């Protein structure tokens, strides 16, 4: 028989009970929100698949759009165009972005580095339609639309993403490792090339892929710069190139219901492309993190 007071027990009471209730409620809200976030993507993908069902077949990817008044046809021209637009944009944005990231992370003094990072963040926040109209004024007015102008606009959108991600992955490599190189009598740039870069290059690939994933679906800048495009497969970047996002936009406004369905199918192709790129980017990111930290 216990000698303590009869009301002695180990059950929760008072504030503890209230806290437990709040805890259960918060947990429910948090997990509910997480499920909702996942559900949005699932719902989106399912509805795109359902609505594009009739239009999606091999021809859709391999054929050019059907001539006026005919049915069938595909978006091969837009696929090639989007691929080309992205490649040219990468050729411009990847070197500049990677070097800017290297500069801010490794070689700049803290002051200039902070300024460059701030500017890159601001540039990242500029709406793509603003970049589109800027390039429109710069390269299209007085000339004509071109794939090159579109790529320049996409490159400007990619640039801050690549530069900032590169800078962040380089910063992951511990400062003590850089010190070790310097203390061995290895110059700063050789330490960077031989020790820091190998630990971080997977992350730089991730940075590039994230940039690609971001611009693959950009529509606004291309409407200004590369939207009056031919229905044939073309690789001439001095003329407007067809692209998937612009195709989705024009088809969805078309009076022809078959083209509505094709717009959905093109959207599905775009989603799958971006999804694949994101997954590959994640794989590289995980690998880069392991290597940078030496695990």
């Amino acid at each position, binding site marked *: 028989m216990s000698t303590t007071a009869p009301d002695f027990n180990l059950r929760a009471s008072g504030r503890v009970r209230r806290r437990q209730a709040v805890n259960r409620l918060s947990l429910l809200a948090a997990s509910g929100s997480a499920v909702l976030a996942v559900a949005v993507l699932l719902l989106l993908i399912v509805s795109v698949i359902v609505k594009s069902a009739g239009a999606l077949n091999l021809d859709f990817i391999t054929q050019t759009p059907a001539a006026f008044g005919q049915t069938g046809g595909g978006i091969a021209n837009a696929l090639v165009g989007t691929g080309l637009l992205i490649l040219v944009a990468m050729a411009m944005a990847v070197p500049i972005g990677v070097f800017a990231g290297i500069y801010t992370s490794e070689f700049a003094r803290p002051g200039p580095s902070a300024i460059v990072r701030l500017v890159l963040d601001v540039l990242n926040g500029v709406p793509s339609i603003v970049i589109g109209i800027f390039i429109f004024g710069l390269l299209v007015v007085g000339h004509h639309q071109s794939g090159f102008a579109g790529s320049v606009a996409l490159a400007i959108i990619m640039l801050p993403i690549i530069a900032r991600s590169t800078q962040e992955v380089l910063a992951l490599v511990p400062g*003590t*490792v850089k*010190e*070790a190189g310097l*203390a*061995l*009598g*290895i110059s700063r740039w050789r330490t960077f090339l*031989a020790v820091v870069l190998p630990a971080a290059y997977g992350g730089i690939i991730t940075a590039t892929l994230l940039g690609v994933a971001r611009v693959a679906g950009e529509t606004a800048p291309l409407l200004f710069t590369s939207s009056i495009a031919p229905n044939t497969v073309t690789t001439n970047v001095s003329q407007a190139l067809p692209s998937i996002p612009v195709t989705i936009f024009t088809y969805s406004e078309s009076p022809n219901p078959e083209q509505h369905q094709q717009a959905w199918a093109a959207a599905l192709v775009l989603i799958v492309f971006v999804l694949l790129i994101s997954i590959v980017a994640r794989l590289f990111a995980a690998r880069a993190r392991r290597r940078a930290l*030496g695990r």
Partner: protein
Amino acid sequence: MAPSDSTRTETEQSAAQPAVGAPSAAELRAAAQTDLGERRADARPAPLQTARGMEARDVLAWYGASQALKGISLPFAPNQVTALIGPSGCGKSTFVRCLNRMHEEIPGGRVEGQITLDGHDIYASDADPVTVRSKIGMVFQKPNPFPTKSIFDNVAAGLKLSGGKRVKRSDLRDRVESSLRGAGLWEEVKDRLSAPGMSLSGGQQQRLCIARAIAVEPEVVLMDEPCSALDPVATLRIEELIHELRQRYTIVIVTHNMQQAARVADSTAFMLSGELVEFAPTNKIFTDPDDERTEQYVTGKFG
């Protein structure tokens, strides 16, 4: 490393210190006497290779506007171990980083005064910091092997990448082996030289870093609390290693652990608030210091 970082780690260590048990004066005296008195007087071998000594004269150092060193003058005799002791933030790590021009790599880091290696001013206008560092190697607080490199490549990195003359491929293997032997690691790693350096245990990683530092054949090896991240067994191995390294190199070791200073050092300097309080043979510092503050510090009354 940013100054705030080093302060933080030092604080953590001093917080961890009491757990080990503050050494009593008698223990320290015993440690100093065993190691310095008996072993060294009788059994200390002649140096296998004569290293060069260093001398610091009136060294001042800053982090931006805050002054960390207020005029330190110290000689570092060739083939001797000199320990720097003192409470957290006293400037001992800063000072040791001035000795191979690493302090200036920190943004805002500035050094004045004169530091010579065998009479040559390492801060002379025509002295190249990269070359200076190849003569004055450094081992850091936390083991920092190069993350993507194998054991072999970690040791060979300095030889392959520093500006000095090229080492032939066949010689490279010999140099890696002799450096790993010199760091007492060869027997443990000889069958897996291509394994990542990071796959070793903490103590092995630190010995790998020592091998990497001595592979470029420096004159001086600076050690900034080399055992503070290691367990007692690994610590003991490094301390034994320091006795051997002294036969080839001049050694400067920063330590928080007073028994360690007593065990490994020929001379010990006690620093406080950026100033040198006392510099003397180690057993004098621990048994009969001239300065009252040194006495208080080594008997655990503060710090």
